């Protein structure tokens, strides 16, 4: 048995090397660098908590990025979840040609955020863009989307919500797993479609919702491309999310120590939100087998 254990360990060596070199080592080093003044071009100098002190008590850009990130997550995640579930519910219908629509709705997620999407978003939201043209046609006044902090945040939230494909696919799988007998029983009991959705679909889907929620939450906190390409973090840093600040600190000003400290704060932030979700999940997530069994 002992030798078998050694053998399995040997087989695991490539994976262990991978995780140590590419995950644990960088993870530990970034924690160490967060206590240093490190420009990448000279040896790191240990400065204790100076980076964290600067972040919390001196640097106004940090708090602006912090709140912008929280605002982005709070706005994006629920909107994307509701929208993805709504579309998945429709896409779950057994209709002819539904496969085409499932693919079509997934396309925005494949596109990601690139220069073409940035051009499209500018075309939609610039001063003389399509949205303002429509607004003016219906008698409303055009709006400076990219020069208003709220407007700019709305544009990047919308970009992420529009890319709901992956969340939709997960919901679709979850919906397909719900036994049809439950709906039949509910129908016999006289439950309307509306009632069936809230009393059958949502409870049965709650583990999938929970999974999707955690996934979207983590992705939301790591949002980079949208603000980087569409708003450039502006106006006046209103959409300057933490990942963008981390990137700029690391690769524009080459302050790797400060960038590492920012990364750790973002990590802790994600951990706190995820922990809250896990803690509350006991109250709203239902497993058909009772869970944990």
């Amino acid at each position, binding site marked *: 048995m002992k*030798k*078998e254990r*050694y*053998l399995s360990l040997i087989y695991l060596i490539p994976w262990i090397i991978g995780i140590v070199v590419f995950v644990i080592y960088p993870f530990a080093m970034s924690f160490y660098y967060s206590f240093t003044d490190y420009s*990448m071009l000279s040896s790191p100098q240990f400065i204790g908590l100076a980076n964290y002190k600067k972040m919390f008590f001196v640097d106004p850009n940090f708090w602006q990025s912090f709140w912008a990130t929280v605002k982005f997550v709070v706005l994006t995640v629920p909107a994307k979840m509701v929208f993805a579930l709504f579309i998945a519910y429709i896409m779950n219908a057994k209709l002819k040609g539904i496969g085409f629509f499932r693919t079509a709705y997934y396309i925005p997620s494949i596109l990601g955020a690139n220069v073409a999407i940035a051009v499209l978003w500018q075309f939609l939201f*610039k001063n003389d863009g399509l949205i303002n043209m429509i607004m003016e046609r219906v008698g409303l006044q055009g709006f400076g989307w990219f020069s208003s902090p709220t407007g700019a945040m709305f544009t990047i939230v919308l970009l992420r919500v529009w890319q709901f494909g992956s969340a939709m696919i997960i919901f679709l799988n979850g919906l397909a797993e719900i036994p049809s007998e439950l709906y039949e029983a509910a129908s016999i009991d006289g439950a309307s479609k509306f009632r069936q959705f809230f009393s059958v679909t949502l409870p049965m889907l709650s583990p999938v919702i929970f999974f999707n929620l955690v996934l979207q939450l983590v992705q939301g906190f790591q949002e980079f491309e949208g603000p980087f390409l569409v708003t450039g973090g502006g106006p006046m840093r209103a959409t300057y999310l933490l990942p963008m600040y981390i990137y700029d600190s690391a*690769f524009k000003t080459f302050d790797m120590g400060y960038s590492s400290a920012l990364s750790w704060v973002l990590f802790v932030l994600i951990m706190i939100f995820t922990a809250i979700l896990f803690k509350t999940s006991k109250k709203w997530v239902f497993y058909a087998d009772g869970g944990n069994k």
Partner: protein
Amino acid sequence: MAIIRKVKTMKIKGFVISVITVGAALLSLSACSNKKSTDSDNGDKVTIRMSWWGGDSRHKAMQAAIKAFEKKNPNITVKTEFGGFDSYQEKLTTQLSGGTAPDVMRIDGNWITTYKDQLVDMSSMGKELGASNFTKDKLAAAKVDGKQLGMPVSTIYRQLFVNKSALAKYGVAEPKTWEDLFAARSKLPNDVFPFYSYYQPKSVTSLLLLQIMAEQTGKPVGNADNKLLYTKKDFTKAVKYYKSLVDKKITPSKKEIDNSGIVEGAPFPGIVNQKWLSLFSWNTDINVFATQFEDMGATLDIVPALTMKNGKSTGELSKPSAFYSIPKSSKHQQAAAKLINFMLNDPTAAKLQKVENGVPDSKVARNTLEKAGLITPLMKKSLKIAEGTVDTKMANVYRWDQPTTMEAASDAFTQLDYGKTDVDGAATLLYNAFKEQESEFK
């Protein structure tokens, strides 16, 4: 069971032996390659790496020149690493940090002070590099603390490109002074601007600030030891001037730029719609803008940098476009120097690269291009203007265009344009950032 155990034990032993054998083989291979590398400069075959940034046409031209170099030097193979400007510096800094930077690196003029501790001092390699083909002042641009840390590729100039057709449409003469721009305002519709200073979409350039300050004060930003020469008062005066450009609608405000639909990597709507009548930019952008102007049926012209009433400088600022440098980690410094010399000075290389890297600083390369008629008429005009009016006192201004000062300029002008700060607040922000940069130079 015993047999199975024996087989397993043998397997483990076999595995361990294999690992040791493969490891030993790899070690001996690397020893071989190390041996080769130490012998490289004595005529043995070597492989070196070269990196640069640019567009497709530059990549093709550089690759053709490198092929010609390999043909001439069959003992040297050159591996190339190239791409766009975006993220080039990130990659290079990471490579320098890890000691894996290419043997010949193209670096931006601004970066030489940042990388000064990582670069080879080329002072003693003058012959190998063909340094006699360069004037003293061109070489001086790549000198830091008395060390020759790079070889200059070309010099670029900040110039004003005007939309000749649109100016004629509105009955506006080509501007010569800032005052001409103010005078043109009354002839233009509200949404047409006489001037736009291009540097980076989404951010207001610190170069416009430096331009105004050069003309107002007649002083460069710092002296030879990078000591800041501008006072808080100088910054206040410059910010006030910038504000008047925005208030009088001479240039679009940051707010207007944000809403104009501008995207990095795409033609600017202001240019395409012919609503920005002149562009203040580096003359390396001539071809890009000339093509865009042609596409919209307009004619581009170049005029000297705008001067100011009672100004103390011509305002014609220059900057080395790039340097070729060798990192200290290079094991093939002689081969790298040979490649740099070829790329900068060899007539064949010059003809192959044309003006893809700007008009070369190397005298022999420039003569070759001029004789072969490879410098476009527009570029010739640009150079004639620039070289006739360049303010040499301002030769080091570009060194202050660093992330700290750029960010401060962007923040200061954005806050000012959005009404979140006043002239004094913006000037204080700028002054503090330039003081911070001064300490970073040390």
